[in-house]
């Protein structure tokens, strides 16, 4: 990442200072930013500062990148968690429904929605929903995380939770109204994936002998599905939820941009457009760290739910 940003063409000082900067100003800025040192030295300095939790100073507005990220993290986490929960909450039953009613109407609806869901650009779903619910029907806010009059109160930074902790149901409801559309948009892709995988997982399981055994024991269909089939069909779903994190992080960038959501995704777009390299490096590094950890956690959980897999 470090190398990538440095080696490729494009001079950050030109961007920070504008097109009319003099040669002296540029040289001065390069010294200040440490860009005149040899690359290996820059790299070691960079690694050492990351180890101290110092992600550098933004080229753009000289703000500490670490504090900029910390300030925006809760907004993104809140959005991401709501979206993931929504996706699993609806994706699982939809997948089961599709499998149980295979080849009939519910299956066609689930499969169709999932297929279309995977083919729609995230930001366009957002635009459509905005057009219907905010512009035409005037039901929901067009963007942002709260109205300007709302106070940001601690301790978690999650607006819904904070308002509930302050026993303010009206505030929590307001926060939910702002969350509704972005959550729906961000949940769409993981919903479609979870529904698809659950459906094919269920279809595999339903054909197994032990399901026939369970039925022949005289168990009710509902019990067979929930107790015997779903439990085993869930195993691939764990992986899918883990794998959804990558697209979810990418989706968050576009979703936050569409809805002016003040989180890390929109920050990413801002710093990329400004070619603010310390900030870009930090954001990408953070996303890679989260992404890799989630993948490891998924593997471990997978081994836990599937006794056939031994984790070495």
């Amino acid at each position, binding site marked *: 990442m470090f190398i990538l940003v440095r080696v490729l063409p494009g001079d950050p000082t030109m961007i920070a200072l504008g097109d009319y900067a003099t040669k002296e100003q540029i040289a001065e800025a390069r010294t200040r930013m440490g860009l005149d040192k040899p690359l290996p030295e820059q790299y070691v300095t960079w690694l050492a500062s990351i180890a101290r939790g110092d992600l550098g100073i933004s080229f753009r507005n000289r703000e500490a990148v670490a504090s900029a990220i910390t300030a925006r993290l809760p907004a993104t986490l809140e959005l991401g968690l709501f979206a993931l929960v929504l996706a699993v909450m609806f994706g699982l039953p939809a997948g089961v429904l599709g499998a149980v009613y295979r080849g009939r109407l519910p299956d066609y609806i689930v499969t169709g929605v999932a297929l279309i869901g995977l*083919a729609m650009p995230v930001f*366009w779903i957002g635009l459509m929903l905005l057009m219907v619910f905010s512009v035409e029907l005037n039901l929901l806010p067009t963007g942002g995380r709260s109205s300007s009059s709302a106070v940001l109160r601690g301790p978690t930074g999650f607006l819904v939770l904070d308002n509930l902790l302050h026993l303010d149901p009206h505030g929590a409801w307001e926060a939910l109204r702002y969350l509704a559309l972005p959550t729906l948009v961000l949940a769409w892709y993981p919903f479609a994936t979870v529904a698809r995988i659950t459906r094919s997982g269920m279809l595999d399981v339903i054909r197994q002998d032990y399901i026939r055994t369970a039925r022949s024991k005289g168990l009710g269909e509902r019990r067979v599905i929930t107790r015997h089939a779903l439990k085993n069909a869930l195993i691939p779903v764990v992986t899918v939820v883990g794998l959804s994190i990558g697209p979810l992080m990418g989706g968050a960038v576009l979703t936050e941009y569409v809805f002016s959501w003040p989180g890390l995704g929109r920050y990413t777009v801002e710093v990329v457009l400004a070619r603010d390299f310390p900030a870009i490096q930090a954001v*990408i590094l953070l996303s890679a760290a989260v992404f890799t950890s989630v993948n490891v956690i998924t593997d471990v959980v997978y081994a836990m739910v599937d006794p056939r897999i031994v984790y070495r």
Partner: protein
Amino acid sequence: MRVIRRLLRYPVPAAAGLILLAFAVLGALAPIIAPHDPQAADLGRRLAPGSWSEEAIPGFVLGTDSLGRDLLSRLLHGARASLTMALSPVLISVATGVLLGLLSLRSQRLDDIAMRVMDLLFAFPALLLALAIVAALGPGATNAVVAIAITDIPRVARLARGQVLTVRQQEYIVAATSIGAGTVRLAVKHVIPNILSVIVVYSSLLAGRALLTVAGLGYLGLGVRPPQPEWGSMLSDSRQLMLSGAWEPVVLPGVAILITVLAFNLVGDGLRDALDPRLS
């Protein structure tokens, strides 16, 4: 030929393929068939509705955008840009990925090195890696294509390598090696033809995904530079448009993207079934 005949037994993927073909032809012929210059702005006719409305301007079938440019012409020219930008990274990543996958035939060491580099690229979420690369290279159509290609290479390489490793165990490969076939001959004559079907199916799915990424980058202002039309960038000022009540410029480019990506995915699914000898 057999593949095409088999594909026709699956009407949905075949129809999807025809749609893709139609879009490609329309895009290629855009300079000839587009009724207007896609970049000719005229604020006097801005945000005109499509011909289904009474307020439509004659000659502007789908209406105009915020600068008064003909929407149909922009969509046609946009098809050209969007499809080219979706297919180019697929070609690049498939060529590079397959080559990297074939390394395992030649040398264990090279293969190890290549796969570690791929692992490194795999550590980043795809869109964020593409954003970082575009940030480094600067916005623009070519750079967006390069960025998408780089994010796709590890996926193709890993798939190709897995296939190569399976194929390599087959008896005909052992036989070819024992009569003295070199690595290149082995790869071209025996390995590539046998892994091709899997790669082709995957390419189709990759093309759909690439189109979504192209549109996303365009929407963020990091893809095709304005005033060049591309479906994603055509949507970039739609937030303002919505408030004006015009829906055509917001809905139509998105529908074009949706149909194309859906078609790529359906063709991919259909090809998988048609090429799978076990399903007949």
